[in-house]
Structures are given as structure tokens and as C-alpha cells.
């Protein structure tokens, strides 16, 4: 029980961090909105017809997944910053649960994601986005994307603990996030890519998550994407939570 209470305190600390540091707030909320506007108006004309006529309905689920991944980078960056500033040492010298620092960070980042997703949906609504499959499926879609982001926060936490320098973590973040985001169905239908790339694009987690959200919000594609995404989330959590906690224990 005290582990849960410890975690809640760290969540509280990190939520304050995410919302009180202006650069972080702008980076995490304004940037995805800029992407949404840019892609909608720049690509909308060209890709619109391929995507079934209503590009914003196609694009928004994709941008949500992109936001999840870009946001995840900040989990690792923040952790590396805390390591270097001695905040982690202070917390490690307290009698608290070992997992609390990592769980507190990843959960706080999920809280931020919920807020950012709400902003995106509001902007999307103004651009003409409408969900088609009822409120239940809509909420399920939000749940899937938040869980998806949570899983990638743990990937990023692992990267942060391995590299331990916030700028390096930031740069490395783009290295692993860009291929996942762009070689996916986020912006364009996978069928428009060369066939060798389609093999990767069709099976990687971002495409599955985007397709799951499109299915749940718009009735597009097949419902298989939903459980494929859940499997990916389970796999990522099962692999990366133990690695991150192990690295955390090894900090010197």
C-alpha cells in the first residue's frame, strides 16, 4: 500500500512539472495541434481522395498516435534530467518503493496525454472531425491510445536510464520515433508505400494502434487491429517495465 501512496506523490510532483514548466506545456500541447493543422491543410488535398474523402477523420486518429509517441520521448528526457540534477538520488535515499519513481513518472505523463488528447479532439472537431461509431467505441478508442502511450513511456524511460543525458535522450528519441511514426498509416494509407516497406508498416505497433482507433471511431478497416494493438501494448510493458526497473536499480 505504501508503494501506491509513494507513487501517487511522485505522480503529483510530475504532473506539476508537466503543467508548470511553460516550455513543456507548449511542447506537449501546441506542437501536436500545429501538426494537425499543417497536415490537414497541406496533405489533405493530395491524400484526401485516397483516404476515403474525409481526410480529417482519417488524419486525427493518426495524429493522436503520433502525439503519443512524441510525448513518450519526454518521459525519458525528464527522467534523465532528474538523474542529472540529483533529484533521483534524493528520492533513492528515501524509504520508498523502488518502482515508485518510474511508475510516478509514466503515470503523470499519461495524465498529460489525456489533456493533450482532449485539446486535439476539440481542434479536430472545429476542423470537421466527427466520430461515427457511438460514444462507447469512442471512449474505448481514447483508452487504447492512452494505454498505447503509456507502453511507449516505458520504452522511453528505458532509453532515458540507459543514455542518462537529457539532450542525448531527446535526439535518440527522434531516431526511434520517426521511423515508427512515418512508416505507418498515420499520414498516408500504407498501400501507397513500396512493398518492402509495407511489410514493416503493416505490422508495427503504430499502424496497428492507428488502425484500431480508426476502426473504433470511424468503423474503418478491421477490428483485428484492436486486439493486435492490445497485444503490442502487453508485449511492450512486459519487456520494458522489467528492463527499466532493472536499470533503475543499477543506477550509480
Amino acid at each position, binding site marked *: 500500500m505504501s508503494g501506491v501512496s509513494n507513487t501517487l506523490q511522485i505522480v503529483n510532483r510530475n504532473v506539476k512539472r508537466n503543467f508548470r514548466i511553460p516550455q513543456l506545456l507548449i511542447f506537449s500541447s501546441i506542437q501536436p495541434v500545429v501538426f494537425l493543422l499543417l497536415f490537414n491543410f497541406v496533405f489533405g488535398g493530395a491524400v484526401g481522395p485516397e483516404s476515403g474523402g474525409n481526410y480529417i477523420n482519417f488524419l486525427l486518429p493518426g495524429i493522436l498516435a503520433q502525439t503519443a509517441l512524441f510525448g513518450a520521448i519526454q518521459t525519458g528526457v525528464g527522467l534523465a534530467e532528474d538523474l542529472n540534477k540529483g533529484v533521483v538520488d534524493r528520492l533513492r*535515499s*528515501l524509504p*520508498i518503493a523502488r518502482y515508485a519513481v518510474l511508475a510516478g513518472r509514466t503515470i503523470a505523463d499519461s495524465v498529460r496525454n489525456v489533456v493533450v488528447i482532449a485539446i486535439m479532439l476539440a481542434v479536430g472537431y472545429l476542423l470537421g472531425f466527427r466520430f461515427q461509431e457511438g460514444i462507447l467505441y469512442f471512449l474505448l478508442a481514447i483508452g487504447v491510445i492512452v494505454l498505447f502511450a503509456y507502453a511507449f513511456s516505458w520504452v522511453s524511460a528505458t532509453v532515458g536510464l540507459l543514455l542518462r543525458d537529457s539532450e542525448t535522450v531527446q535526439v535518440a528519441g527522434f531516431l526511434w520515433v520517426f521511423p515508427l511514426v512515418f512508416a505507418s498509416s498515420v499520414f498516408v494509407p500504407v498501400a501507397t508505400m513500396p512493398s518492402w516497406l509495407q511489410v514493416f508498416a503493416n505490422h508495427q505497433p503504430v499502424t496497428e494502434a492507428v488502425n484500431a482507433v480508426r476502426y473504433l471511431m470511424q468503423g474503418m478497416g478491421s477490428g483485428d487491429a484492436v486486439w493486435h494493438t492490445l497485444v503490442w501494448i502487453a508485449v511492450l510493458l512486459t519487456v520494458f517495465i522489467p528492463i527499466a526497473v532493472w536499470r533503475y536499480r543499477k543506477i550509480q
Partner: protein
Amino acid sequence: MPDKITNDKLAINVQGVTKQFGTLKALDTVDLKARQSKVTGLLGPNGAGKSTLIKIMTTLLSPDDGRVMVDGVDVLADPSEARKRIGLAGQYAAVDDFLTGRETLYMVGRLYGMDSPQAKKRSQELLERLDLVDAADRQTKTYSGGMRRRLDLGASLVATPHVLFLDEPTTGLDPRTRLQLWDIIRDLVKQGVTILLTTQYLEEADALCDYIYVVDHGKMIVEGTAESLKSSLGQDVIELRVSDAQLARAKEVIEQRLKTEVEVDDLTQRLRVRTTSGTDDLLAVAAELKKAKLTAEELSVHRPSLDDVFLAVTGHSAKETK
């Protein structure tokens, strides 16, 4: 006198601690004992192993070998029990910019398992004690360096630790703020807290520490009270400065008269002579210089300072290592 016996109990007992980082032996079979309700100082140049030893004593790092007892708890066998009894204030003043002073202390209180009213009460007490009430509800990014140190110290005091570890608590502070922190430290000792502090400032060790360890290259070189370390050099020091042109001649004249070696400090061009009878020899040196028609711009005799001790045992001055 039961009082005396409790005072003599060891709050920290480190035995044979060794830690290797790759090929670097950071600590080599180090022993350290700290008595209860006393201030023990750990001195040494940067990279000597001070922070490594602090990290080991505060459960942040495991040694390759050795035993560490803190407040009666085996730190290596039961780190979580040890964490309940210690406080740590690091050299970076690890307080979050975006939290207020009050929020920082409250969070630490809750992490120690206090309920909300307890944590609030304790935060208020510490804010008052550390003179931070006016700034309590401002984010700490608006704090001065001294205020951050005080808050960091406050965070380490939340759970009323028995043993407090201070890793260079006053590095980078202005003299007035340093004195303020010294007062707080002395106050804590009066209340029975055992303190282990590292410092680069020898005058700080001299002013605060009941017992001093000097570490260099991962080894304990000397230990003792400030007084005993100074008198271990056993001798007074005569220091004088002459013009560059007269330097060699002055050295020769004094060496002939006192039959002992004169050191020349390359940096300051001062001549230094160790002597057992400071005042007599001072007069003799003055007379000899006059006879040789040499002029001393400065001439003094003083007891060895901790800086002299440091120089004698490590081969370099504490100040030039920073």
C-alpha cells in the same frame, strides 16, 4: 556516567570499504568512525572518493567489499531500514524548480509515510526554522543559492534523521550564507543529530568538525581532531616574502642560520621555514636579513593551519585542487 557512554556510541562505522569503477580504485579499504551527536568531517580534493563514500553510506551505491553500519543498522543488509534513519543533502541542492518550498517539504514528508496533516505541520516547522516562511509559497526557481541550500537541508530533516549526511553543504555560497548554515548545523548537533560532512573548505572543517578524516586517491591518509592534526606537524611556520632579486640570497642566509631547509612556494614566491621555536627563530631571521642588507616585505610566524596539514599529507594545497 551513562551520558558519556551514549555519547561515545558510534553512529557510523565503516570498515574496509572498497569500490572499483572499471580500472579506477575509487575507494581502497577505507575505515571511518563517527561518534554520536558529533560532526565528523571528510576532507579531500575533488575525485578523492568523498562523494563515493557518502553514496555508499546512504545506500545509493553498493561497495565491492567492506561493512557499513549506520545508526546500528547494517546498510548493505537492510538498506530500507537505514533509509528511515538518515538524511542526505547533496552538493547539487536537488530541489525542483517548479515546486514551492512548502510543496517540496510536504512531498518529502508524505514520501516518508506521514499523513497529510502531519506533513503540513512538519513543513511549517521547518520553513520557520530555516527562515523560509516568506518564500514558502513561491516556486523555488525564484530562490537564491542560499535559500535553495536551506530548503535542500530542510528536505533532509523532514523525518528527523539520527544521522545527517551533508555533501559539500556550503560550496558556492557567499560567506554570510555559509555562516548561517554553520549555525543551523551546530543547532542540529545540540539536538543530538550526528553529522557527517564533506567539504573543500578547511576553515569549515576547522570551525565545525569534532573529528576529521582526510582522504586522497581513495585512501584515508590521516585522521584526528583539527587540533591534533595541526600539532601533528609539530612545528610553527615562519613565512616571509622578499623581492624576486633577493629570493635566492635570503634563502641561503636563513638556511645557514637556522640549519634547516627553506621551502619556496612557486606560486606566491613566499619562503617558508618549519621551526620548533617560532618566536626566537623569527627574531633570528629578522636580524640575519638585516645583517645581509635584505628587506623582508612580510614576515610572520603562525601555527600550522589545516591547509598546511593538507599540503603535508596530500602533497598539494586544498585550494588549488578545485
